[in-house]
């Protein structure tokens, strides 16, 4: 079965639904119509640009360009993770923790998938590597930012508890373990929800897209299952590494809790 190709006219007709939203906004005085139209235009332009960019990268298909593009995506995701928490670590701690977490999660899971389940030829083929890295990144970003935020907001709240243990001679890594646990838990919970609800509450977007594009439901489902497991891995790695990297930035050689490194 061949995919049904969309024409610009098809998209224009679909855009009328956005216009309905805009009319509702005017009618109810929501003052959202301008933002709505701008967002719809941004969405269109950004996705088209990405489409052309990907077509170009897939055609060229050199490992260097593929890697470069993935690195840029990682940099942007890392910045997002760093910006999310209310609290900031000194000396670019948020950026370093966020970047390391998403980079590690993405590289480990994407390479793992390319080396085991997918095995495209060549294994670094841009058509597989880039979308895979992209979806891993999106999830790693989510998990890392939740974990980082939980850790940084928890550390001031738990300060007395942590320092009471330090004062008794407990090692920093043991005194902060409960907080690490809370942060990692926060980062991992969403993927558990997504996996539990998959197919019942929600039809995952990728699977829906593949079915619409003509793939058999069973094949689409198999891909979705593979992706879910990869995402679980990416979420775990991102949540754990964000928490540990950030916690390492909250202490010094004398195993103190340095809340002064947090602002």
């Amino acid at each position: 079965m061949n995919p049904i190709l969309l024409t610009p006219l098809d998209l224009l007709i679909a855009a009328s639904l956005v216009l309905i939203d805009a009319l509702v906004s005017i009618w109810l005085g929501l003052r959202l119509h301008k933002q709505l139209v701008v967002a719809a235009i941004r969405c269109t332009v950004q996705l088209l640009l990405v489409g052309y960019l990907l077509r170009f990268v897939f055609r060229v298909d050199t490992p260097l360009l593929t890697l470069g593009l993935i690195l840029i995506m990682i940099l942007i995701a890392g910045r997002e993770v760093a910006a999310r928490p209310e609290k900031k670590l000194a000396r670019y701690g948020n950026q370093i923790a966020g970047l390391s977490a998403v980079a590690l999660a993405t590289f480990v899971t994407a390479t793992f998938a390319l080396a085991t389940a997918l095995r495209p030829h060549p294994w670094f083929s841009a058509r597989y590597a880039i979308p895979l890295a992209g979806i891993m990144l999106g999830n790693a970003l989510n998990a890392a930012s939740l974990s980082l935020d939980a850790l940084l907001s928890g550390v001031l709240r738990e300060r007395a508890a942590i320092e009471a243990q330090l004062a008794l001679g407990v090692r920093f890594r043991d005194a902060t373990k409960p907080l690490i646990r809370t942060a990692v838990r926060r980062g991992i919970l969403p993927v558990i929800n997504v996996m539990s609800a998959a197919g019942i509450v929600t039809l995952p977007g990728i699977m829906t897209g593949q079915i619409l594009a003509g793939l058999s439901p069973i094949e689409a489902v198999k891909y979705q299952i593979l992706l879910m497991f990869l995402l679980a891995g990416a979420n775990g790695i991102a949540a754990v590494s964000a928490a540990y990297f950030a916690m390492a930035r909250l202490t010094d050689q004398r195993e103190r809790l340095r809340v002064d490194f947090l602002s």
Partner: protein
Amino acid sequence: MQAINLTGAAGGPFNFSLAPGAAMAITGPSGAGKSVLLRMIADLDPHEGKVLLNGTDRASQPAPLWRQRVGYLAAEPGWWHDQASAHFTNRTLAEALMPTLALNPNLLDQPVHRLSTGERMRLALIRTLLNNPAVLLLDEPTGALDPHATLLVETLLADRLRQGSSLILVTHDMAQSARLGATRWHLEAGMLSAQDDIAINGDPQ
């Protein structure tokens, strides 16, 4: 214990030494840095300077080991488990000390948030004492206690002093430092000064 040129957020440089069995009581206005000074000695806050214990430099040993030997107790000690008993590695030893501070050992089975401020303070003191630290750094250990419990804490501390522990105490209670035989010090504007002359002159008795 000897402090050499301790300098940090509390001011300084502070230089003092404290023999085994001796006690220092530090007074001073709120915010003068009394707690920070104790935290500097315990190596919980960043600072400059050296502290020696029995001639051994603090810097030559791991910080957790130092903090076991130089036990700091905050004015509002933290708790990290729900159940009081979970904060004690050796429940039997804790239960043995509790009656000397008028605490019923059953309190260990309570959640920490059910305990009164005074009960929590005394339990935290026991927690610190169970490490058998050579130096005790106590930040207003009787601030939340009634006169009876205060005397019991002082009796326990006097025992420790007799056994050779040293004590640095932040207190507002002049009579308390006298009862513990502590030398009086005043911390203000980053300066620590001996207060014994003023204490004698100002003593109403």
